[in-house]
């Protein structure tokens, strides 16, 4: 039994950052993790996904575009074993990085399953005898787990997103249920590696959370990559065979090696013992917190996928910092959920922040939109990357940027600039006068800002 200032339960992108931030504030910290440092993001979700996507990207570029770029590529093929080995190596490398950071910050790593054991107490059940530790503050950062579709169970053939990224064999065909960020990434990666992909979405739009203008660009590329997109379609059932599955999607039967469920996620709180600790949750299991991440139980904080807002690693990280700063009595600012950028790494990438055009109109703003096609930027011709669009949704009253949306190969990197401008309360008039290096894709952002006032130079 040890006494800490703060115990962080969960070592994912929310928890590991929270722990380091708390250590910076001079606290004695422990992180409880039942699996690996870095949590799901690093070991089972974001990082493995981007690693495989990168292979698909390079492969498709060389295979399809090599001649154009002056590369004679013959016998280009996917070595799936090597892809998986690299995927694992990347995660292991980053996991080691997190462990090293914890050591450097003198953070104790308690391996095991944690539960709340009375005020200021955390029980850790590891390989040995369960131990109870004391802490002035407890940060819940246990993340989320995938939810199956009602009536369909996970199995060897019906897999979740992690299952999709860690397949032992490159499949011939996949059915992906859910065309949100995760589903679109899986569909895109496999389709570009030559797998026959059927993408099924209940709602009427690919990437339903994104601005329709962005989704349209992605949809065009998906079709070019041979993805069969079934919108407004439900996965009604699945029949497993020895070699694969037959998925009933709407009134069609689709045969594939696997059905990937890329639907919703739910907070992973089963082991924590929230009720007994007096931590209140919504009906769907979301832990209720205030704007400083405080739960209804004194000294207990919750962050990331456990609480309101999008289930995104970068959002969890900031909430982790806010939680420990609040607990330590340090200066902090609540998270602005409107400024959490969305990032989808399919090809082409989609990134966004703030309101869509429709949301802005609904909110009654004096909406002014600037759009600029990536093809207008010189760099896009250089990189042979002309599909794509930057869209800025502004409020004409004071030149405020209400939302920004980018679709393009490096959209997720490009969006940062717009998050910054919005967060610092610059407007599109300022952005339109900020110098962007040439030749880069970011020049498209500059022209999109100009376009709000109808003065894009390269349009």
């Amino acid at each position, binding site marked *: 039994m040890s006494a800490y200032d703060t115990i962080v339960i969960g070592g994912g992108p929310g928890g590991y950052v929270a722990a380091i931030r708390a250590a910076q504030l001079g606290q004695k910290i422990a992180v409880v993790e039942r699996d690996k440092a870095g949590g799901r993001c690093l070991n089972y979700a974001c990082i493995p996904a981007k690693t495989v996507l990168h292979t698909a990207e390079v492969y498709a570029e060389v295979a399809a575009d090599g001649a154009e770029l002056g590369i004679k590529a013959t016998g280009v093929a996917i070595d799936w074993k090597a892809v998986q080995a690299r995927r694992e190596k990347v995660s292991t490398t980053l996991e080691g990085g997190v462990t090293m950071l914890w050591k450097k910050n003198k953070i104790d790593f308690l391996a095991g399953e944690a539960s709340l054991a009375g005020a200021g107490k955390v029980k850790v059940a590891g390989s040995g005898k369960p131990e109870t530790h004391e802490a002035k503050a407890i940060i819940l950062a246990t993340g989320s787990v995938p939810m199956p579709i009602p009536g369909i169970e996970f199995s060897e053939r019906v897999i979740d997103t992690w299952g999709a990224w860690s397949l032992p064999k490159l499949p011939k065909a996949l059915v992906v249920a859910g065309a949100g960020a995760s589903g679109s990434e899986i569909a895109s990666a496999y389709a570009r590696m030559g797998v026959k992909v059927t993408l099924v979405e209940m709602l009427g739009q690919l990437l339903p959370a994104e601005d329709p203008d962005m989704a349209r660009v992605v949809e065009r590329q998906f079709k070019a990559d041979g993805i069969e997109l079934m919108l407004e379609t439900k996965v009604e059932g699945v029949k497993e065979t020895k070699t694969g599955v037959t998925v009933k999607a709407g009134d069609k039967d689709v045969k594939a090696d696997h059905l990937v469920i890329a639907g919703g996620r739910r907070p992973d709180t089963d082991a924590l013992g929230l009720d007994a600790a007096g931590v209140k949750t919504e009906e769907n299991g979301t832990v209720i917190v205030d704007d400083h991440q405080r739960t209804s139980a004194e000294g207990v904080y919750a962050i990331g996928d456990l609480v309101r807002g999008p289930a995104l690693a970068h959002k969890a990280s900031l909430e982790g910092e806010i939680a420990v700063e609040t607990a330590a009595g340090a200066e902090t600012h609540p998270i602005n959920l409107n400024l959490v950028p969305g990032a989808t790494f399919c090809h082409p990438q989609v990134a966004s922040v703030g309101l869509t055009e429709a949301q802005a109109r609904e909110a009654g703003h004096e909406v002014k939109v600037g759009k600029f096609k990536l093809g207008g930027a010189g760099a896009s011709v250089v990189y042979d990357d002309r599909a794509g669009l930057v869209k800025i949704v502004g409020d*004409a009253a*004071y*030149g405020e940027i209400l939302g920004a949306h980018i679709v393009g190969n490096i959209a997720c990197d490009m969006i940062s600039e717009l998050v910054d401008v919005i967060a*610092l*309360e610059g*407007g*599109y*008039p300022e952005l339109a*006068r900020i110098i962007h290096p040439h030749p880069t894709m970011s020049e498209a952002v500059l022209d999109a*800002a100009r376009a709000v006032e109808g003065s894009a130079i390269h349009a």
Partner: protein
Amino acid sequence: MDVVMPRLSDSMEEGTVLKWLKSVGDEVAVGDELVEIETDKANMVYEAPDPGTLVEIVAEEGATLAIGEVIARVGDAGEVPSSNGDGAGAASEDGGAAPGAAEGGGATPPAATTDGASPGRVKASPIARRIARDRGIDLAALAGSGPGGRVIKSDVERAVAAADAGGGTGGGPAVVSATPGPPPAAAPAAASAAPTPGASEKPETAKGTAEVVELSKLQQTVSRRMAESKATAPHFYLQAEIDMTSCVDGRERLKASAKAAPGRVSGPKVREAGGMPEEAAPVVPTYNDMVVKACALALREFPRANGAYRDGRIELYSRVNVGVAVAAQDALVVPTLFDADLKGLRQISAETRALAARVRSGEITPPELSGGTFTVSNLGMYGVSNFHAVINTPQAGILAVGELKQKPAVVDDEVVPRHLMGVTLACDHRILYGADGAQFLARVRALLEEPLGLAL
């Protein structure tokens, strides 16, 4: 070299160019009288801050501009444009209008010209700046809630809401500053110079013809400040009737002695204090002077009454500066008697008269109108027996003085005629509470009922 609209008083947000005292092409030396500017408090002559030739007059007479906006340019004689087509010169500052500057009175070029020019740059986001400019909010007066005290959108929006709630600036076109460098021909009607104060039009309404009178800068300020005070400062009132009989007796004796020795009473100090109208006449303090002195002495003893409620905190001042409300033409002006607790009655009297004269002649300057820590307002000369005054925020209180009149009073079980005067102390309850206010008022009363203390 740009000459910008200067900040000539604490509360000034914008100024109106009344009259150019130099013409384009004139040589100006530092300190030369350059332009007459109307501020929220007074008309001021602004002296040239840089030497050179007046190359260009950007702000026409009558134009109202925010602090920091360019009003003229001083440079080499060679820069003076030829008389042909110089009207366009004013617009050149903005260059090829930035995308953001294309529309809306509040739109500015990205590098807001106001910041660089004014000393002590305010940290504020571009959006906050645009809203502030549009709605006539002084960024320097806001406490920023962003990192490092940066003023952000929500801070300005709160200020706008407060102003709206207080019936204050309201963001009407009257307070929106003109666009930078207004080319007269292109300026839309709303953005042109503020309406001429006092100018009136007479539209027909169901109430007959309505004479619409535009407010002068000073009147705008008075109306805004008064409304803000009533809306934000919780006023409560303490009334008292002060027996001034001893003061009356004392003043009669002073009058008599002044008559006996004409021209001898006013000391040299009095003259220094500022141009008395009748220099030779001896100064006999008025009853109001006595009230001012009594308040000053009591303020010294009750620090809270000599403080201010500001941004959730209380400021207590080391100097006792009593403002004396003076009715000016169509306006109310409160010149300040600095260190009134340290000054003799005679000096208070002389200074007050001098200040009042300068108010009426329009020569009063902003420094003479600021720095007050308490206010005395007297309407007794109009036969008002008692009234409630509006606190000149952020001061803690104001004493309203009514008529001094002989009335029957009971003294030692007998009804006798006494000189009584009704006063009402208005207190801002956020700083001056009931018992404190009452004790302060009791002290003022004691000093006036036994006025020997005033002479000390």
